[in-house]
């Protein structure tokens, strides 16, 4: 057995030991699982996946592609963990199992293909942008030169029309290093890939709002991908690299300065993911504490540190926007933020939020899930879009660029193709 294999298996055993004793096998996690809802089979529930992981860890079950299929069919939305009365973290177990699979059988075929598609033909963008990141397959296919918003994917298993955000001519972090006056208090901005490469308007909105509040925005240029996409595929070594790089880049602004994220998944990684994966890493571990404590979602910062009254005053009078709110899984379930984003959104829209049915339901993106399980992903997306449209709002607001991409893709096929999809910070910036 190679060292990596053994390490991954040991890690799986450890996580299984830490999480499985909590599970009383009640099955409550089944009822919130978007995958189970579409394909009711125990193998797709958190309860089932944890039992499979335990059997793998204990050597009662072999690592086969058929077993892997069960663990791969998961959005890592953390809905199960958030629902579980005993706080069993199925998502941790599933990720540890995927890492073990990556060592035992190599990366899954489809993920390898995506990775391959990436490395071919896009060398121009530089290695930095290619770390196997989540949305790169989508981004790179949309490089300028293509016109409309729809592209056909010339990739395995990706054969549907899919909305692709256009790649920005200049990445956000190339343009912005520090915005605001030196004498203002400052925040450190962790942009995330999507905001940096494609939806740069989110970054610009962030700057506009914070500067209007007389807060400077520092954008460390050494930061990179948060590592979530690699984690999803079970590529632990790549996650570690990403973590180390970010931790070093973010530590530069000192132990006090808040780190602001506009991407729910990135926030989840900085706050929990790194710590859970590398907390006892002798080199990385000690650096992580400060990072997690400093990290805040942008809506949380605005609600808790700035105050909704001040936001409302800043927004002042003006046109009212009919908005509804989509809870990103990694914001609501992983970071427990529900009131703050709604409060900020209501202030920005000058109107109470029109709640859709099931605002907490996953949009179906799940990192590369939308590519590897396109059918199911689309079914989950369709429910979301129907609920959003029924809310009567004209705009879906959320706080994760990934969700935005998925929702925009769905809206165009749904009952209200005219609906807009925006990051809450963008709505706020536009209201100023």
């Amino acid at each position, binding site marked *: 057995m190679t060292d990596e294999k053994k390490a991954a298996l040991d890690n799986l055993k450890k996580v299984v030991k830490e999480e499985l004793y909590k599970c009383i096998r009640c*099955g409550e996690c089944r009822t919130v699982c978007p995958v189970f809802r579409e394909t009711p089979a*125990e193998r797709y529930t958190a309860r089932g996946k944890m039992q499979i992981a335990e059997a793998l860890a204990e050597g009662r079950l*072999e690592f086969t592609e058929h077993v892997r299929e069960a663990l791969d069919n998961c959005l890592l939305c953390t809905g199960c963990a958030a629902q579980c009365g005993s706080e069993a973290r199925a998502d941790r177990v599933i990720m540890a199992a995927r890492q073990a699979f990556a060592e035992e059988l190599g990366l899954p075929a489809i993920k390898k293909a995506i990775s391959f598609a990436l490395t071919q033909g896009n060398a121009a963008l530089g290695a930095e942008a290619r770390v196997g990141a989540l949305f790169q397959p989508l981004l790179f296919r949309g490089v300028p030169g293509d016109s409309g918003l729809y592209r056909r994917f010339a990739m395995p298993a990706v054969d549907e029309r899919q909305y692709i955000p256009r790649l920005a001519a200049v990445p956000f972090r190339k343009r912005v290093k520090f915005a605001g006056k030196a004498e203002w208090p400052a925040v450190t901005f962790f942009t995330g890939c999507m905001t940096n490469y494609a939806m740069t308007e989110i970054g610009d909105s962030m700057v506009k709002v914070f500067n209007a509040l007389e807060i400077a925005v520092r954008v460390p240029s050494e930061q990179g991908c948060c590592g979530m996409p690699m984690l999803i595929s079970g590529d632990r070594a790549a996650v570690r690299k990403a973590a180390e790089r970010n931790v070093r880049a973010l530590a530069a602004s000192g132990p006090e300065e808040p780190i602001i994220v506009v991407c729910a998944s990135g926030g989840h990684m900085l706050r929990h993911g790194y710590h859970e994966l590398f907390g006892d890493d002798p080199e990385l571990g000690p650096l992580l504490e400060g990072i997690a404590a400093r990290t805040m979602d942008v809506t949380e910062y605005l609600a808790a540190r700035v105050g909704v009254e001040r936001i409302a005053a800043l927004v002042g009078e003006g046109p009212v926007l009919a908005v509804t709110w989509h809870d990103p899984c990694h914001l609501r379930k992983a970071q427990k933020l529900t009131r703050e984003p709604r409060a900020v959104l209501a202030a920005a829209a000058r109107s109470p939020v029109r709640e859709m049915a099931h605002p907490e339901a996953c949009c179906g993106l799940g990192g590369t899930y939308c590519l590897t399980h396109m059918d199911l992903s689309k079914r989950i997306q369709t429910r979301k879009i129907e609920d959003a449209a029924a809310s009567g709002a004209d705009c879906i607001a959320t706080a994760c660029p990934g969700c935005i991409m998925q929702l925009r893709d769905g809206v165009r096929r749904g009952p209200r193709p005219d609906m807009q999809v925006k990051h809450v910070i963008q709505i706020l910036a536009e209201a100023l």
Partner: protein
Amino acid sequence: MLKQEFKDRIEALVGKDRCSFAPEDLIIYSYDANAEKRAMPEGVVSPETTEEVAAILKLANEYEVPVVPRGGASGYTGGVVPVCGGMILAMDRFNRILEIDRDNFLVIVEPGVITRELQETVDKLGLMYPPDPASTAFSTIGGNIAENSGGLRAVKYGVTKNYVMGLEVVLPTGEVVRTGSKCIKDVVGYNLTELFVGSEGTLGVITKAVIRVVPKPEAVRTMTATFRTLEDAAEAVKAIFATGVRPSTLEFLDRISVEVVERAIHFGAKPEEGALLLIEVDGPDIALDGDVKHIEDACGKCGVITFRKARSDEEREELWKARRALSFAVCEISDQWEDDDISVPISRIPQMIRKLDEIAERHKIIIYNFGHYGDGNIHVGMTTGKDGRPFPMEAKDEVVQAAVSLEGRIAAEHGIGCVKVHNLHWNIDEPTLRMMRSFKKLLDPKGILNPGKVMPKE
């Protein structure tokens, strides 16, 4: 071992996607929420229609393969654990609410519908499905019917059986029968519906149910009352019932439960408070003030120490806190608990608690009790504490026998499953057991449907 031919025919019937014989799938259909019992099935099949269920059961008869119907697998007594191997019949795909008939206050559902979903759906229409087991959020209607599940509101609204008007059932031989009707008054033929309610998947597979619902009460009032002793609380319960008010919830915590919860969440219990009642009434808003007054007076006459009334939703939550906190508060005393689910006629509860105290004393163990005072259902938690002593299993039997000696039952709402079969004779005498056996034999001559459950094997 299943014959390859049998597997092929199952696959031909439902397709590759809806059956599996893969090792990982056998592992994940080997359990329910019971902590100990596990057994591996040999395959799993997920039917979508009554016809498919019938065809599967016919095949199972032909090849003499055991079949175990499975809902949410939240059962506490190993009801879905395939102790004799065979096929798991996963009812997950029967998850549709087929008809909501507001005028007649009934709903037709498939058995795989999660109970909470049914409740939320009818709630939007101003209706209520009253049975509310603590597992409402994840157990299925089919499982609830098969277990005749109870819940907090049983004292006023009864248990699952009171809401099942009719069933479509596939008999173990594959024949499809229909029991009951949509009519409230219906004396046509034997009352077969109730034969299947609580049959724990041993007499037939439920594929459709006609469920009764009621108008949703306009308002709820919540209060708690504490007493020096459980005897005082018992007097208060008697006094409450004597006023003619029927609470929708009447939960109790005994002395140890109160102490444990106080230590964990500091809800303000005084040292002399040795029993707590959590009481709710529901109905038209204008009537409830009177009900609350009656209850307060009744408690007042019986030595109440503190009487609290919730004036808002937050205060209601506050009052519920002590009851809800119990399950995690007890972890502070021990992480190894044995528990049991018994019931006694309600007037016997104080006697039962005294007997439990004696058992605790005799075996030097800690026993805490809580449960549904209003329906006599006591949940007994037992532990040796944190000293690592193995739990004296005789104590568990003594608890159940204490209930039996007070005309109580060895299982109140969690079923017999495969874990209590050997104690069945404590409640069921020989001729009655013989009758049960002949029913089973008649409906399931080859004994393929959920064998090893409810009754001990002959």
